[in-house]
């Protein structure tokens, strides 16, 4: 699948964050091939040592090597038709070095001793060319070597081992339910990712990891013949760091209410039935009256607000200006952090970075520069206390070691600071969503993520959603449409007056978060329980052309 195809999917409502053009690049392979073992670990270690030795011989003071095999499977359907079955494999080696105080990187898809030597030499040559125009040498936080270690996503069923036919049948069944229910169009897809990556560095680490992710999703469209207008409703699934077991949900994996939502397992057949009913209701829904509302935000929606307004501005490379030319900088400047009293949100707001959380997209054992993963506070009792950093930034915020936020989307891309899982902690007092809604006089309950946009320093944002329910005097009073809310990040998080307890906690996430030049894709989860925000500005998005 190329970028154009993906953008067309996005236009149909398969939302994607900023998508780098290299998304899903790779070589198509047949499903059986995907099951074959990749290169032997011992061989990877030998070849890694060749790379590290060659880099040092040419003058590198530090080097790391990543030998990666990246498998993707992407099955797309619309109505009764399979649009595409794509299996891709990408195998190669990326070598990063410091020489003369500057970074250099080179990559090759030919993983032989001779080619690895040449690639290491190219990386050193790039570093030396860059050193001529660099004034400040790279300062790398110390990192102990771990020797030979490994980590694997704890999956139950490898999605690549499930026959393609089973997945196609499931998706066509999804489409059939939508069409039988009165939808005019339906698109559905399953994406599966397996990153088999081996990392070695001159610090003495040899790390073998096997990472799995999956994302099943659909989009149902219904056209109102009377007006010619259409509405859509996307799946309430999340991309997760799991195997095919994600698609096997039982009762205790579900959250019932005005619409059924899902915890750590997903029932796609039930959700599409509900979506088809929802989309018909959306067509008849009342258009929203613009104004101030108390918003009750479901985790299936709130993850994206956390992603854009908390997780991005706490990325240290943005704070420092490394992303100034593309993704932007951050309003969470170092002086606010140093003050130790910058009130990012209300006292209820506690936000953590966590690369360990089971089932999350960001969970790995070690990051892509050999740092062991951990959990730490970003916002504590509403106050900004930390950032997300990597080895060459740690010294700037007085850290003795990296927090482990380094990632590259493939062997052929250079690793750099990427967002980890960033989540809102649940409320500590017992509070259900129903009890939260009971106290709202004039509000909107929002489920599912929709349109999203935020400025380059992460102050001003606007979000849509999938389903909007009017709350009047403590009760759900029916569905609304044409809803989007706009707010200032700090004002919004300070307006947080209630967070449901841990029984409501769920993960949402982004399968393809884009950043960098050239653009790279990253997958990351954001957890929360339902939360309430008072007096937020809601606009009406209906227009005529």
């Amino acid at each position, binding site marked *: 699948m190329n970028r154009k195809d993906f953008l067309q999917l996005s236009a149909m409502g398969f939302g994607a964050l900023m998508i780098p053009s290299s998304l899903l690049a790779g070589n198509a392979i047949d499903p059986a091939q995907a099951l074959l073992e990749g290169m032997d670990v011992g061989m990877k270690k030998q070849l890694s040592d060749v790379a590290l030795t060659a880099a040092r011989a040419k003058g590198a003071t530090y080097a790391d090597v990543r030998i990666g095999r990246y498998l993707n499977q992407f099955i797309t359907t619309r109505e009764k038709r399979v649009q595409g079955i794509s299996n891709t494999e990408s195998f190669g080696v990326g070598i990063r070095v410091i020489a003369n105080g500057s970074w250099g990187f080179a990559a090759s898809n030919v993983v032989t001793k001779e080619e690895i030597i040449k690639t290491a030499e190219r990386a050193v040559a790039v570093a030396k060319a860059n050193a001529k125009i660099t004034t400040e040498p790279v300062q790398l936080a110390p990192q102990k070597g771990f020797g030979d270690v490994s980590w694997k996503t704890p999956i139950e069923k490898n999605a690549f081992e499930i026959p393609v036919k089973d997945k196609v049948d499931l998706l066509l069944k999804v489409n059939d339910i939508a069409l039988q229910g009165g939808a005019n169009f339906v698109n559905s897809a399953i994406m599966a990712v397996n990153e088999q990556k081996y990392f070695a560095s001159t610090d003495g680490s040899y790390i073998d990891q096997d990472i799995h992710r999956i994302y099943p999703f659909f989009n149902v469209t219904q056209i109102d013949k009377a007006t*010619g207008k259409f509405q859509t409703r996307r799946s309430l699934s999340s991309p997760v760091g799991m195997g095919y077991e994600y698609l096997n949900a039982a009762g205790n994996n579900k959250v019932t209410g005005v619409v059924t939502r899902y915890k750590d397992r997903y029932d796609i057949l039930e959700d599409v039935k509900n979506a088809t009913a929802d989309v018909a209701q959306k067509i008849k829904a009342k258009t929203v009256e613009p104004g101030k509302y108390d918003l009750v935000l479901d985790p299936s929606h709130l993850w994206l607000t956390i992603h854009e307004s908390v997780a991005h501005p706490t990325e240290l490379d943005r704070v420092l200006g490394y992303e100034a030319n593309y993704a932007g900088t951050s309003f969470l400047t170092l002086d606010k952090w140093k003050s130790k009293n910058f009130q990012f949100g209300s006292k209820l707001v506690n936000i953590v970075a966590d690369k360990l959380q089971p089932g999350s997209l960001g969970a790995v054992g070690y990051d892509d520069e050999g740092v062991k993963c951990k959990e730490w506070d970003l916002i504590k009792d509403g106050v900004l206390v930390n950032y997300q950093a990597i080895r060459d930034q740690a010294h700037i915020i007085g850290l003795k070691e990296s927090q482990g936020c380094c990632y590259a989307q493939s062997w052929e891309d250079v690793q750099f600071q990427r967002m980890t899982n960033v989540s809102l902690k649940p409320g500590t007092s017992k509070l259900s969503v129903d009890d939260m809604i009971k106290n709202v006089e004039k509000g909107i309950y929002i489920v599912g993520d929709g349109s999203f946009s935020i400025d*380059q320093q992460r102050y001003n944002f606007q979000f849509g959603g999938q389903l909007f329910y009017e709350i009047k005097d403590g009760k759900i009073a029916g569905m609304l449409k044409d809803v*989007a809310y706009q707010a200032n990040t700090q004002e919004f998080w300070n307006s947080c007056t209630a967070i449901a307890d841990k029984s409501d906690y769920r993960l949402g996430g982004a399968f393809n978060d884009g950043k960098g030049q050239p653009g790279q894709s990253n997958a990351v989860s954001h957890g929360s329980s339902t939360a309430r925000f008072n007096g937020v500005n809601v606009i009406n*998005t209906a227009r005529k052309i």
Partner: protein
Amino acid sequence: MAILKQDEAQALLKKVLAFSKADECEVSLNGREGGNIRYARSAVSTAGDISTITLTINSTFGKRTGRTTINEFDDASLEKAVRRAEELAQLAPEDPEYMPLQGPQTFKDSITYVPATAAITPDTRAAAVAKSIQVSKDAKLEAAGFLENTTSFDALMNSKGLFAYNTDTDIIFSITTRNQAGTGSGYAARGYNDVSKLDTFTATQIAASKANGSANAKAIEPGKYTVILEPVAAAYMMENMFRGLDARNADEGRSFMSKPGGGNRIGEQLMDEKVTIYSDPFHPELPAATWNSDGQPQEKINWIEKGVVKNLEYSRFWAQKKGVKPVPGPSNIIMEGGTASLDELIKSTERGILVSRLWYIRMVDPQTLLLTGLTRDGTFYIENGVIKHPIKNFRFNESPVIMLNNVEALGKPERTISVESYRSYLIPPMKLRDFTFTSLSDAV
């Protein structure tokens, strides 16, 4: 190895086709080499070299197609890849929309390849960036920028005798300069086929002047304003619209090009009569490939002519279903304009806002093409024909279709790039009335 000449590509593809046992087989090659350099805080942050070549094989039995891709080119690997595509085809469900391959076509030569761009080295990239860093240092600004050059080739051959080949060079450069206090920011972006047109020194000077000029912006009330969009802002604003020029989505009733009551808007006056948008792969300022991935020739074609929808893309399947000729999607996008410079547009404005750049544009409603996003890197208040002062950034909620009904004047088209896709366009600066800003942003 990554860039094959036409005869080398042709020989390789013929060899691959000779292995085919399928009813129909289509094979293509894509090769790419080049490099990039990224800098921030006035020093190089990342840099790399790329070199890749990929062969794609589509084998079809009846209406069942299998696809495989490989980057190994010895005979055994090529044959294995062909067999694999054929095995996948046998396993695939029938595609009711499959269209038989086309026979030989005539394609004109493109003008997309410039040898000087193909000859760029890591040292020439570093030298171009050094100039930019020096300008920023002299202006006491922090620089963050990106330079990337790519040389590529594409070749397509099928079992019915079609063959197509193209080479292309491309260089893009973007630069953001910010003052130390973080109160001013400026930007410039350039994209060319020909490296000799790239002047990183002047582009950085423009970014620096925007950074210094935008410091200490004043807030004005959101609302409807006359705006002047610079080409880099206008291109990004219209990119979603350019992607939506598709007849099928329109006929299915789920596009801004859908006609209320059914069908599409071809023939309808949808925009102001000053708006003409077309594609022309032979335009000297914005050359493009002369064939598409489906093996159809690309020619000059009008999409919007004097505000009237003239053409939409028809895939070969949809064209057959609708009984019309297939229309390939845009090879490039060129919007006609006038002769006025940006300065002249400003001079003719009694009260308005100059927008240097837009940011994070996302679709709010595909039916009306309502978009939201923000201004960035230099937003200025104009009064009585002069720039009075910088203003704080705004969030907008606006549809390019509505915007192009409110055209006051168009300036001289310039080659510019989208700040998100990096695709090049030829777009005029445009003066538009009643552009809708809905809130203020504190971002600089």
